[in-house]
């Protein structure tokens, strides 16, 4: 029993943190949000340079062969900096799907190296989401159909933009016709694979929400320490302090839940789905509270487009409802807790 990360894991995420602090300043985010695609080739190249596109691609395909647990710390950083890139869908979800395919799969041989070197963008679509993020901008679409996995080029589908308040993603309604040509994997294997995608997306989102919550807390804290009213920093007023302390409490108790969910995926824990839903709920709550309290501390400034806070709030609100909204995840909790003979109570936290 050891609930700590390795030195390697910590120093990788620390390096990414420091890198993004320089390379993903809010001014740059604003610029990328304003572009038509919402994507930046420069940003993508830098992420690839850092090895992030290759993180979980097997070494045989030019990657680093790391896993779910490595990703979770990275995802916290991607959230903290609200990185506008389809990195998670491409380098985490699509890689997870591709890895499961047979060694002779063309998809695997063709795309994994391109993902690893940063040259491919993949969009992943499942009916749990009404829209597919960044479909128009993708080199490849991996889509669900009747539990099967299909692969096609964006040009083979009809894409209708449905703009989001979170400009770091472009959402599309995707209409397409499944065929033998597009099918990559049948329903039997696909069923489990898609569950794996939902859960991995869930952990990635939870970790990003944690990072976003921390960022909004930091923005609120900085603002409160500087902004003066009635002759002193508003951060010296107890009401402001307690608003921010409440956020810190939420984050503190969401973090281990999220990190455990990642480990459950990494080890194939039979209750991984439960752990992911728990993570989604607490991380979402932390992010929503951080948004609410941070805007409150910012006062009218927080309600503007000019304050950086707005980008992080919008990203948090939007992200929290994708790959299963809170209702979906609450229902998964209920299904477990209220089942007859559920393994509840002390001594059951780490049982199988």
């Amino acid at each position, binding site marked *: 029993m050891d609930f700590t990360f390795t030195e390697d894991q910590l120093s990788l995420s620390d390096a990414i943190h420091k890198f993004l602090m320089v390379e993903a300043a809010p001014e740059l985010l604003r610029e990328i949000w304003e572009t038509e695609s919402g994507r930046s080739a420069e940003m993508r190249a830098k992420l690839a340079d850092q090895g992030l596109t290759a993180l979980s691609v097997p070494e045989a395909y030019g990657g680093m062969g790391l896993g779910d647990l490595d990703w979770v710390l990275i995802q916290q950083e991607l959230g903290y900096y609200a990185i506008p890139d389809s990195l998670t869908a491409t380098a985490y979800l699509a890689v997870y799907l591709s890895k499961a395919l047979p060694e002779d799969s063309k998809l695997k041989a063709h795309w994994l190296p391109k993902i690893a070197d940063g040259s491919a963008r993949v969009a992943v679509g499942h009916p749990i989401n009404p829209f597919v993020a960044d479909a128009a901008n993708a080199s490849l679409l991996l889509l669900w159909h009747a539990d099967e996995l299909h692969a096609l080029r964006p040009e083979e589908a009809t894409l209708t*933009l449905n703009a989001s*308040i979170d400009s770091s993603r472009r959402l599309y309604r995707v209409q397409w016709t499944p065929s033998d040509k597009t099918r990559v994997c049948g329903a039997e294997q696909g069923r489990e694979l898609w569950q794996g995608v939902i859960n991995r997306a869930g952990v990635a989102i939870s970790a990003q929400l944690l990072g976003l919550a921390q960022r909004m807390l930091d923005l609120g804290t900085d603002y409160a320490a500087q902004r003066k*009213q009635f002759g002193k920093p508003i951060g010296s007023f107890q009401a402001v302090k307690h608003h921010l302390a409440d956020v810190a409490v939420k984050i503190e108790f969401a973090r281990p839940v999220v990190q455990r969910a990642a480990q459950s995926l990494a080890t194939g824990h039979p209750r991984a789905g439960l752990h992911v839903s728990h993570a989604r709920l607490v991380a979402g709550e932390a992010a929503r509270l951080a948004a609410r309290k941070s805007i*409150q501390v910012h006062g*009218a400034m927080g309600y503007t*487009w000019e304050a950086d806070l707005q980008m992080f709030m919008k990203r948090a609100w939007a992200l929290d*409802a994708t790959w299963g909204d809170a*209702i*979906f995840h609450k*229902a998964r909790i209920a299904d477990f807790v209220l089942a007859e003979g559920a393994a509840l109570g002390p001594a059951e936290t780490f049982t199988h």
Partner: protein
Amino acid sequence: MRLEYTERQKKFRAEVREWMTANVPKQALSSFDTQEGFEQHRAWEAKLHEGRWSAVTWPKELGGRSCDLIDWLIFEEEYWRAGAPLRVNQNGVFLLAPTLMEYGTDEQKARFLPRMAAGADIWAQGWSEPGAGSDMAAIRTKAILTSDSQGDHYVINGQKTWSTRAVYADWCFGLFRTDPDSSRHHGLTFILLPLNLPGISIRPIKQLNGLPGFAEIFFDNVRVPVANRLGAEGQGWNVAMATAGFERGLMLRSPARFQKTAQNLVALYQRHREHADRDPSIRDAVLKSWMDAEAYALSTYQTASRLVRGGHIGPEASTNKIFWSELDLLMHETAMRILGARGELMPEAPEAAESAPWLDGFLFAQAGPIYAGSNEIQRNIIAERMLGLPRA
């Protein structure tokens, strides 16, 4: 106690309902934070004025109907029930007008009120400054009384901010420091001024939704005739407090608005009930929303009844602000939770028809606990003035 309407009140309600049914635009207007939408809303104010509905609580001779507060509540109920547009001249009709009626000269009333009622002049407010938000007494923008060949006038220098409607509005009212040696609440004067004067520049501030709902106003040697002063020189704080009282208290937020939202929320929940019931907190929040909107209406009717009988609003008005702003957040957050992954769509998205009004309301609800005196300030007021706890 009599919780039934009189025959006169019922007839009044029927009259409002009939007019609204006939006149409320079938198509929603554009946001009044766009130039196009602003003019649409100005036209709607003129239309309301034609029907003598733009300021029902004003005296008849000023274009109103001398409605008492109960009539006003009935009017508001029918207004929101009909789905009529937001009031672009709220700053003027609801906030400035009562102050003008109390402190204005006959000339000022005649000059400003009829045009306000007709939508000819739309008003912005100019309270806050960069260093004076919750702490409004920290105002520094100067208006120095000067005499020259063109008569007495103020010369204004400085900056206002968070001025709602100021991007497109015609006039602005606010507090200015006329005694440069004064501090805090002293030496302030309440002044009205057109926003097209030489020396004024306006920088729109974009809100969360990307539209410029408020603005910074910069004053560079702006000359304003002394006739534009409301109340006495140096008495601005008292004059303004009357307005702020209206803003905090009864007038700003009629219960009908929240009852309409609660009703819409129940309908949204019913449409998505199968999904929503998988998280029991949704249903509970829907029920609470209806109950709280109803409680807010009851409280307002009770306060209105008391005022009609000659009572006054005290510091308990601060409880209103907290209650409606938290209710508004609850309702919009709940709606967003029901909408799930569709909630994030921008109004222009093809599939946003159901969700866009909720997203817009959700963003606006974020401002509720902040503006018109933050909820922290309101809680201080309740604790100190209503409960009598010692100041820090």
